[in-house]
């Protein structure tokens, strides 16, 4: 009895320390907040939120190794801790571990969707930002490589032309014509290759008819139209319980995930990273 009593007291004490930490955090006294959370962790090391709250403080102080350590600990306690995946993702991105960071954020997004949209907008924006940066980096690289390939090819063609022209007396006109054609064709081929990184438009069938933006969590409704889940729910709540186009009655349970469109969006984004650019 006395043991259980003291365990409860310890728990209570840890909760008070967490609240102290939260208060310090709101006042941006991150050092004091870390101390409070650390004490809470010492008392009750098995509560994930103490670890994730401390991780957030470390993130504010740009101490990414410590963010990683605390998040890893929280995930060992409960692998479905949304905030641990989220903060770990942010820390990994800061440490240039882009792919791993994005993977953590995607896991957080998945958990957010299960939790009725908790934090999904924030998480999605971080993912989009990271993916866009990743694409931009790759695109710059590819542009540089194409440019240097172009320079080398042009130089080689020119050398070949000069050699041919000196050997083919009397056929200089023909040699020059071939040379110019080759230059033109080279330009065409390289332009074609560069097109892959040119931002264009997201096709309409991958966009939501209300946000007009690329679909993230597409749902299909009985009329066959597909919308962004969060926005359609907002419509049902604010405007009315009807289909935005046909105006026939529609309720929340009639929303069905549209996996085909979701896959199509993912395939499109894989080849067109520029589409992650936030409006």
């Amino acid at each position, binding site marked *: 009895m006395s043991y259980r009593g003291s365990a409860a007291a310890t728990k209570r004490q840890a909760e008070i320390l967490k609240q102290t930490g939260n208060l310090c955090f709101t006042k941006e006294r991150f050092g004091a907040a870390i101390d409070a959370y650390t004490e809470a962790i010492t008392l009750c090391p098995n509560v994930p939120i103490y670890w994730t709250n401390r991780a957030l403080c470390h993130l504010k102080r740009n101490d990414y190794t410590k963010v990683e350590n605390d998040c890893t600990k929280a995930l060992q306690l409960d692998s479905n801790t949304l905030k641990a995946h989220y903060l770990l993702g942010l820390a990994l991105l800061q440490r240039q571990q882009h792919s791993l960071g994005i993977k953590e954020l995607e896991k957080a997004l998945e958990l957010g969707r299960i939790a009725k949209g908790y934090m999904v907008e924030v998480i999605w924006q971080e993912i989009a930002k990271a993916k866009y940066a990743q694409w931009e980096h790759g695109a710059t690289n590819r542009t540089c490589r194409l440019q240097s390939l172009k320079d080398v090819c042009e130089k080689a063609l020119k050398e070949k032309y000069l050699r041919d022209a000196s050997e083919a007396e009397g056929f200089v006109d023909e040699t020059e014509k071939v040379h110019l054609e080759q230059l033109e064709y080279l330009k065409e081929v390289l332009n074609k290759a560069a097109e892959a990184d040119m931002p264009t438009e997201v096709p309409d069938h991958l966009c939501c008819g*209300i946000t007009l933006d690329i679909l993230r969590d597409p749902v299909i409704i009985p009329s066959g139209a597909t919308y962004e889940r969060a926005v359609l729910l907002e419509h049902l709540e604010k*405007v009315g319980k009807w289909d935005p186009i046909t105006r026939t009655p529609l309720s929340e349970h009639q929303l069905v995930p549209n996996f085909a469109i979701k896959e199509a969006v993912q395939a499109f984004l894989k080849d067109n990273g520029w589409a992650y650019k936030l409006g």
Partner: protein
Amino acid sequence: MLDLSRVQKELMDCNRDKDISGISVELRGDDLSRLFGTISGPIATPYEGGTFRIDIHLTDEYPFEPPKMQFMTKVWHPNISSQNGAICLDILKDQWSPALTIKTALLSLQALLSAPEPDDPQDAVVAQQYLRDYPTFVGTARYWTETFAKRASVGIEEKVQKLVEMGFPEDLVRKSLDKVGGDENMALEKLCSG
């Protein structure tokens, strides 16, 4: 929160084919919630040849609330107030749907110019005339188009210059023109009346 990304996309989309649709949308300033639209009067109606400007205000709830629209150009039409340009159109009220856009709303206004609904009037005087004396209605509507909707299509800068040359300060000229929807005569009246 007003969905800024959607409004930006709408603007781009609308102005891409404005030469074909005869519909365009522009910003009034830096604020994406204040816009004005332009529609051309439909062919074979008393509004043919006119360019009509519409004040558009988007609330924070847009697109879950309809855009607030009002004619800035004076127009003689049963469903549009001849006094203040207020519009009686169901999709701008209870029949709005977030699947509609500023462009589709402006297209509906264009359609409304083609097909007035005098049984559900905004301006009772105009509606009465439409029902009882159609030829006079057509004459008045055409006269209003000539008078108000054609001058408005002259470049705003020319109008500013003209009024400034008459001796009015430029910022006041611009403000007055903006208030009356770019109508030079109405702006002059406003400037003269103080």
